[in-house]
């Protein structure tokens, strides 16, 4: 039987009614999509929901990365001919200029917070410690990649030297560059990682790059290399390492300069 037969008296057929509804739906959805996307992006509740994906990503990657696999290491011939410098390329402070002029002889790395033995280490002391050299890929959050050779002291050695206190969960890196270009310290670059990444064998405090001293544009005299996360975690111009049970007391409370500006704390993806 033809299902349309009994609807010939001018009323809409079920097909036509559905058609009308679908047309209205499609038109509504289209304009809603166009006008509503920006609004949705700025909606706090939607944002909080979408942030949950970071936790899922972190939890699943932790499951996979728990046995501390090493990031791929490359050969000399794989090195990027030009390694792009990103973010700050020269800290603006007078103190930094003086340290640079003095070839960082007076520079010290402070290690404090939840540690048994706070440290103040010179560059020479760091260079005297057992070093690790690795040729790895740097992945910027923007999408470009560069391969460089890094030499430095494994962070685990420095942390063991200071000795962690119970309750230690995060390692926070305080930097000399004011990327936010603020008059006070709120624009200073900082980053934080948890202990799993801090004790990863490839997590090093690098003072050498491509066989030379770390250039100023790449964070002289000392930068972090944490090879399983994106570029913004690789703090440059590190001058203080703070061990803590949380990072929420710092600046925007999200654990890093870019994290305070909307980027995810976990940058393994």
């Amino acid at each position: 039987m033809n299902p349309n037969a009994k609807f010939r008296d001018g009323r809409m057929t079920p097909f036509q009614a559905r058609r009308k509804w679908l047309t209205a739906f499609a038109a509504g959805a289209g304009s809603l999509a166009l006008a509503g996307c920006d609004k949705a992006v700025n909606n706090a509740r939607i944002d909080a929901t979408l942030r949950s994906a970071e936790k899922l990503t972190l939890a699943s990657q932790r499951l996979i990365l728990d046995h501390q696999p090493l990031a791929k290491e490359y050969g000399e011939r794989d090195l990027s001919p030009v390694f792009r410098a990103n973010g700050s390329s020269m800290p603006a402070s007078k103190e930094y200029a003086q340290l640079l002029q003095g070839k960082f002889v007076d520079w010290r790395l402070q290690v404090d917070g939840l540690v048994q033995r706070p440290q103040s280490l010179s560059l020479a002391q760091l260079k005297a410690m057992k070093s690790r050299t690795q040729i790895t890929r740097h992945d910027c959050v923007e999408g470009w990649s560069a391969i460089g050779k890094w030499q430095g002291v494994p962070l685990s050695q420095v942390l063991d030297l200071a000795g962690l206190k119970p309750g230690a969960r995060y390692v926070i890196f305080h930097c000399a560059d004011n990327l936010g270009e603020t008059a006070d310290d709120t624009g200073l670059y900082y980053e934080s990682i948890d202990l799993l990444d801090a004790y990863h064998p490839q997590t090093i405090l690098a003072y050498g790059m491509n066989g030379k001293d770390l250039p100023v544009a790449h964070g002289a005299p000392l930068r972090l290399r944490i090879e399983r996360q994106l570029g913004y975690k690789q703090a440059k111009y590190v001058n203080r390492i703070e061990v803590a049970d949380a990072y929420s007391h710092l600046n925007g409370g999200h654990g890093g300069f870019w994290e305070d500006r909307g980027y995810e704390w976990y940058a393994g993806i």
Partner: protein
Amino acid sequence: MTTARLPQATLPQTAPTPRRLVPRHSALVRVTHWVNVFCFSLLLMTGAQIFNAHPRLYWGEYGADDDHAWLSLDALNTSTGLRGVVHVGSLTIESTGLLGASKEDGALAPRGFPAWLTIPSYQDLAAGRRWHLFFAWLFAINGAVYLVGGLVSRHFRRDLLPTKAELAPAHLAQEVVDHAKLHFPKGEAARRYNVLQKLTYMGVAFVLLPLMVLTGLTMSPGLDSAFHVLLDIFGGRPSARSLHFICASLLVAFVVVHIVMVLVSGVWNNLRSMITGKYAIDVDGDAQ
């Protein structure tokens, strides 16, 4: 043929074709289809947002500004103002207003894809990533449900796997000709996918969409450390990023053809079958 159909087309009330509704798409296919439509739309537009942060593509293990890009959407400052150009290999294509440089708040600004193609419309890499990575999870879970459900319910074997006869060159050629002429099967034959549909849907579901997931995962430095094989398969992270872009472009091409085919082969019937599951076919179908 044409003359015989004319009265029907112009006066449908006088001679309606007897039709009946038959089951077409299972609930699994319908639900995963629309979740996929939603996810793909958002992933595409947030992907364009992420791409705009560095609108250049490379091949190999590294790739940044000083390296050779096989594709780039550039904004050039000229005496006559901002110009948008696409560089593909050695080709340069003028694209002002669409690619490389397009209007932002009324004035031309350097941006890979235009504002109407990105979420959000303004440049915000952090928001683009948050949306992209959230809907990537939903997309992957939805895809897994589809693949497992399709295997268990034998949907793939029954509806998507072409038969030997369908793959015969002569049959394939006939299908291509029929498609080009927009001749679609009627009656009982319309209940099944034709071989071109089967091959296309298999290519999308088993090749392109899984490649999107795998090339996406290869861009994760965390996963790369656990699975170096990803880098070996795709030839490096910048290559994976290029393939991610190429596969997304192929999916867009598929969606365009898919929508056109839906439109020309009976849009409401097709839409209904993907919403309620019921598809109307002519009762006396082929005899017509």
